[in-house]
């Protein structure tokens, strides 16, 4: 190959005020295995994501495969030839999809047909030993298997450049070795392929062809591992790297002290007998026995998912043991035992302190919760001892991993525990920071006599433990001092012991069953601007995910029906059964006659009579009565004498709508009473008034709420639920990291967005059909108008509402924000301003504008029009066109808001 595969000139990158890359010039040779080495936060990931075209270039030029990555056209073309695997175990995989489905998705993104897909998937999973697990969901794979699947996904389209960002961080030594062997074989099958890898493991870097050592956003040295060692004049890469660092940063790099352990008497600090933990059928920890003496540093080694974390959680009381017993300081462990908790410090695998509190606030909180007497003093001590004073008022979120782990350790020891349980405390931490961390651990153990129980994947850390135990598939394989274990197998290093023990236990035997076919470099396939296959790949994947998530599926289909039933029955403007009572101070035949008129009404319900004005007051106040009728003394006498006595009616105005309606009823009853009275006195059935008014209740002759509410509830249901479901679609990928698949492959924004929208639009449409059926057969509200018009309008509407969700999803950063934003933006206009409660024609000012700026107000006339008014396309075409325009507008806005590259 001629020329470098990646060429950087003056590339600089910053995140806010933090500098990630500081003017880098770098040429990565093609056709070899290139490595980027250096501690955390020196810009390795940023550099790789720039090369993958996933991150926007801020300054300088980035040329990849001979083209400028600042050009969108080249990015699209190169996208089909680059494979990018981001940092984190299985971050670009879809956990609920099976191994085969994940690969199928990636193959579809690159436009492979069914035959080609099947052949390639079979070949790759055969080669990686994943074939027996083809139907297992990716989320249930161990860390090492996830990384193998990640590699299969990356290689499915025979890329010319493979970019791997820390592919083996947090992976056990055996899986790590298997991973690199696999990479070698895959490279042999396609010698022209270039690979660039970032890693924090120096021993891995030894096997690369070419290395770039990075620190603080700059390149320290480049060349083969030999070149680098020679430049630094150091025997190992690890030492060479330290030697290359500027003077100031090297200060810490003194050797780790090897102090002898002090022996303590008494019961062992931790003792496990037959400890077992089951999750359903799965046995995570299977009859584990061990003893840890006081003051000992005890290391736990094992493959990913071997039960190390679960064992630790049982020892802290976080998980109950299904069987067996754990004793701390000779006493059995009880879940709610507060006294024991004060003697134990725990550090979980992931960072688990409050990111929103500062370093000092985190320490103070924990000190107070442990009821430490001198909080200020102890926090000060911790800040000094763990070298955190400089960052005391910063939030942990913004700190490098090494410092965060120090803070976690400080929190874990703030209450001077006698036992420390540390779950992979140094995973992902660079060598220098790890050494510092160990210095503290040794101090704690040797000086303070703290018992330390930790798990690790690093063999040099295992060597530092007093004793270690090897664990696999929930069982302890071996236990002893590092020397004892090496001697027992006659091997030189712990790594060999570990790998031998795991292979014996049956891990990694399915390897390499399939021969790999040679794949010479082919002419690059032209990448089309729009490809229905890629759209379908996303739509299909999204559908599979929804189908796997029972809760979401149930919510999508049953939620709307359930809500419609509640609302159809519940939201009613029919005012009936109003509780009322009379305060009859007259008690004459005439007063009884007037009151009888009320008794006959179906709107009112008579309660016990009122006997005093105070009682009237009280009973209305406590809400028992909504209506009280007061007949004054002498009513009958006055009526007969034609003195027009007054009938006092009191209505509870607390709920104005109800009061208004009640007032109407009272007037109606009074009028009919008057007409009756006139008939009785004059014998003529004359009108009371000079005119009659004949009200005609159109569209809903019975004037029943349900006839109007049911079509309106459809409007509401088809916006809220589809919008919220879609709103999580894009942002979920942002949170999980699988958004990089969209960023690093040739898939376009339109394909991605429409692919995401399609399944939700289908769900929403099915839900529309079910709602119409419920309306027709449960509420007996028939569709009076043109059903095709309703279907057309609803189709447009679900496209608009899912489009709206998509739009929200493409600009928010978290799922919580997506839910909030959708709910808040959508609920107010669709509940209050769409015509559900108040007719749109009566809305005023801002409310009307807000209403019209949302599709619900346009769909309401369609739904109500077709259901109740018997309308058709001729009357409603304009509304439907507007709804379609909303759909287009939202999708367009989503496209603008969605960035193909991150900042």
């Amino acid at each position, binding site marked *: 190959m001629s020329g470098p595969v990646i060429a950087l000139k003056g590339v600089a990158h910053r995140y806010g005020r933090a500098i990630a890359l500081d003017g880098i010039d770098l040429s990565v040779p093609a056709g070899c295995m290139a490595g980027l080495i250096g501690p955390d936060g020196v810009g390795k990931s940023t550099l790789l994501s720039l090369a993958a075209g996933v991150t926007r270039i801020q300054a300088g030029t980035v040329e990849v495969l001979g083209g400028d990555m600042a050009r969108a056209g080249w990015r699209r073309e190169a996208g089909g030839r680059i494979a990018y695997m981001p940092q984190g175990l299985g971050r670009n995989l879809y956990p609920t999809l099976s191994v085969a489905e994940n690969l199928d998705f990636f193959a579809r993104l690159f436009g492979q047909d069914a035959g080609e897909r099947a052949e390639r998937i079979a070949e790759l999973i055969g080669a990686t030993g994943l074939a027996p697990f083809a139907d297992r969901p990716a989320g249930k794979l161990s860390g090492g298997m996830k990384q193998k699947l990640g590699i299969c996904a990356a290689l499915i389209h025979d890329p010319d450049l493979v970019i791997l960002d820390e592919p083996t961080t947090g992976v056990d030594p055996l899986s790590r070795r298997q991973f690199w062997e696999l990479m070698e074989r895959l490279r042999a099958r396609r010698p022209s392929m270039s690979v660039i890898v970032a890693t924090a493991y120096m021993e891995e870097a030894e096997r690369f062809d070419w290395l770039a050592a990075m620190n603080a956003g700059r390149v320290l040295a480049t060349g083969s591992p030999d070149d680098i060692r020679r430049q630094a004049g150091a025997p190992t890469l690890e030492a060479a790297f330290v030697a290359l660092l500027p003077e100031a940063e090297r200060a810490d790099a003194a050797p780790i002290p090897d102090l002898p352990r002090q022996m303590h008497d008494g019961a062992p600090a931790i003792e496990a007998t037959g400890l077992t933990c089951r999750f359903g059928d799965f046995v995570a920890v299977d009859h584990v026995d061990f003893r840890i003496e006081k003051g000992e540093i005890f290391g736990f080694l094992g493959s990913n998912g071997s039960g190390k974390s679960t064992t630790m959680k049982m020892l802290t009381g976080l998980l109950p043991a299904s069987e067996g017993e754990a004793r701390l300081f000779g006493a059995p462990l009880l879940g709610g035992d507060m006294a024991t908790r004060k003697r134990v410090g725990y550090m979980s695998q992931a960072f688990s302190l409050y990111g929103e509190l500062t370093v000092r606030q985190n320490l103070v909180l924990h000190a107070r919760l442990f009821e430490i007497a001198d909080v200020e003093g102890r926090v000060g001590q911790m800040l000094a001892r763990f070298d955190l004073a400089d960052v005391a008022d910063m939030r942990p979120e913004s700190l490098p991993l090494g410092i965060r782990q120090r803070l976690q350790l400080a929190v874990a020891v703030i209450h001077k525990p006698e036992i420390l349980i540390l779950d992979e405390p140094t995973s992902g931490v660079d060598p220098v920071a790890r050494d510092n961390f160990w210095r503290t651990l040794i101090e704690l153990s040797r000086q303070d006599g703290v018992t330390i129980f930790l798990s690790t994947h690093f063999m040099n850390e295992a060597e530092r433990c007093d004793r270690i135990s090897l664990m696999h598939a929930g069982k302890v394989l071996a236990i002893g001092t590092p020397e004892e274990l090496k001697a027992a197998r006659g091997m030189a290093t712990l790594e060999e012991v570990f790998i031998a023990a795991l292979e014996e236990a049956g891990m990694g035997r399915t390897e390499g069953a399939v021969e790999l076919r040679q794949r010479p470099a082919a002419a690059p396939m032209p990448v089309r601007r729009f490809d229905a296959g890629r759209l379908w790949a996303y739509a299909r994947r999204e559908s599979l995910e929804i189908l796997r998530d029972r809760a979401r599926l149930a919510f999508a289909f049953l939620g709307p029906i359930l809500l419609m039933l509640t609302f159809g029955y519940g939201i009613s403007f029919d005012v009936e059964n109003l509780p009322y009572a009379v305060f009859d101070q007259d008690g004459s035949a005439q007063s009884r006659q007037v009151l009888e008129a009320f008794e006959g009404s179906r709107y009112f319900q008579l309660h016990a009579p009122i006997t005093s004005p105070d009682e009237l007051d009280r009973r209305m106040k406590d809400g028992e009565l909504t209506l009280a009728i007061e007949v004054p003394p002498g009513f009958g006498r006055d009526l007969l004498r034609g003195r027009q006595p007054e009938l006092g009616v009191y*209505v509870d105005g607390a709920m104005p709508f109800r009061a208004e309606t009640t007032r109407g009823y009272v*007037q109606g009853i009074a009028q009919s009473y008057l007409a009756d009275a006139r008939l009785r006195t004059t014998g003529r059935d004359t009108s009371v008034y000079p*005119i009659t008014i004949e009200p005609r209740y159109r569209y809903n002759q019975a004037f029943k709420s349900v006839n109007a509410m049911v079509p309106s509830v459809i409007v509401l249901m088809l916006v809220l639920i589809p919008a919220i479901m879609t709103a999580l679609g894009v942002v979920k990928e942002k949170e999980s990291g699988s958004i990089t698949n969209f960023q690093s492959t040739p898939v376009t924004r339109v394909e991605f967005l429409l692919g995401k929208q399609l399944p939700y639009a289908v769900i929403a449409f099915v839900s529309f059909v079910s709602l119409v059926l419920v309306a027709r057969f449960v509420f007996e509200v028939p569709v009076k108008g043109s059903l095709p018009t309703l279907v057309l309008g609803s189709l447009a509407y679900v496209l608009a509402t899912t489009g709206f969700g998509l739009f929200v999803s493409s600009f928010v950063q978290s799922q919580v924000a997506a839910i909030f934003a959708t709910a808040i933006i959508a609920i*107010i206009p669709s509940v209050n301003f769409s015509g559900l409660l108040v007719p749109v024609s009566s809305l005023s000012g801002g409310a009307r504008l807000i209403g019209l700026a949302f599709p619900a107000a346009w769909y309401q006339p369609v739904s109500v029009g077709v259901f109740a008014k018997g309308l058709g396309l001729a009357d409603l075409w304009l509304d439907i066109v507007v709804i379609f325009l909303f759909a287009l507008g939202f999708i367009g806005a989503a496209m603008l808001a969605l960035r193909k590259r991150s900042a």
Partner: protein
Amino acid sequence: MFVRLARIFRLGIKELYSLKADPVLAALIVYTFTIAIYTVASGAKFEVENAAVAVVDEDQTALSRRLRDALIAPFFKEPVLIGADQVGPAMDSGRFVFVVSIPPQFEHDVIAGRTPTIQLDIDATAMSQAGNGASYIQNILIQEVLAAVPSAATTDPINVVVHARFNPNLQSAWFTAVMQVINNVTMLAVILAGAALIREREHGTIEHLLVMPVTPIEIMLAKIWANGMVIVIAATLSLVFVVERLLGVPVQGSVPLFVAAMVVYQFSVTALGILVATVSTSMAQFGLIVMPVLIVMNLLSGSTTPMESMPVWLQNVMQLSPSTHFVALSQAILYRGAGLSVIWPQLLALVAIGGAFFFLAVLRFRKALQAAQ
């Protein structure tokens, strides 16, 4: 005991810091208690206001014009004159809720005592305005005719005087504004408390708490008091400044009693939020479950449409929702000036329901933690 209270206090302070660090949530709280309340109370009114009316005047006389002019703001928009043939299409399109049709010879017939008939077409799909608006229009038209043609009037044997208590002019803003405050209290309390718990679970911080000398009950109580306090303060400020000052709604009863009741209510709804959080496995699921729960709790609590109008079975089901009781007691306190002697049964119900939610949440707490792993 004192030690436990101190721990609950400490953990609650931490909640407040977390809330402070989340500007989106803070903005959301401010928005819901100001703009959201103001726009809904002033924009969406249940009373007949600005109703769109059309008139078909086939009489074209002084009396018919007088009737036309009688339909005035703020109840009605300026009536639009349309032809008799336009009634159908105009109503179909939803442009008008009411159409008044005055027949030919109307004035003549009135004077001759022939009792002519005015036809009033009502769009009965506009439930909130149709019924009341129709009775307004009937009254207005009759009063106008009586005023114009006094000879046609007869005196009624009795005089029916309707007094609306607690809200003499029956302004819906009085009702909507306060009910919006209550609805938003419900919404935020459930979301804040539930999301706070899920966030701790997703970030793994809850595990950290559980290995310390802290019990799940303490963690939950801390979330309840801290989030509850923020909402009670926000709602009280909103009631005093937005509802009383800005919207000019007079509050009859004792605000301290209402706030005290709100504190009890907070307990029950934040406990509900935590319960929902323990049932859901992820933030996404929480959002999906909480949304229908909130909509039902708000729309069917009596804060939007009257409780008595719902079928009895549904009324009974809604007794399980704390919002129903709180709406009832708030209406009693704020509109009718009721005191503790009147509202104690509802308060008791709130405590009982809240206690039940809390108890269930405690039962689910650890199980949920394991399920989420």
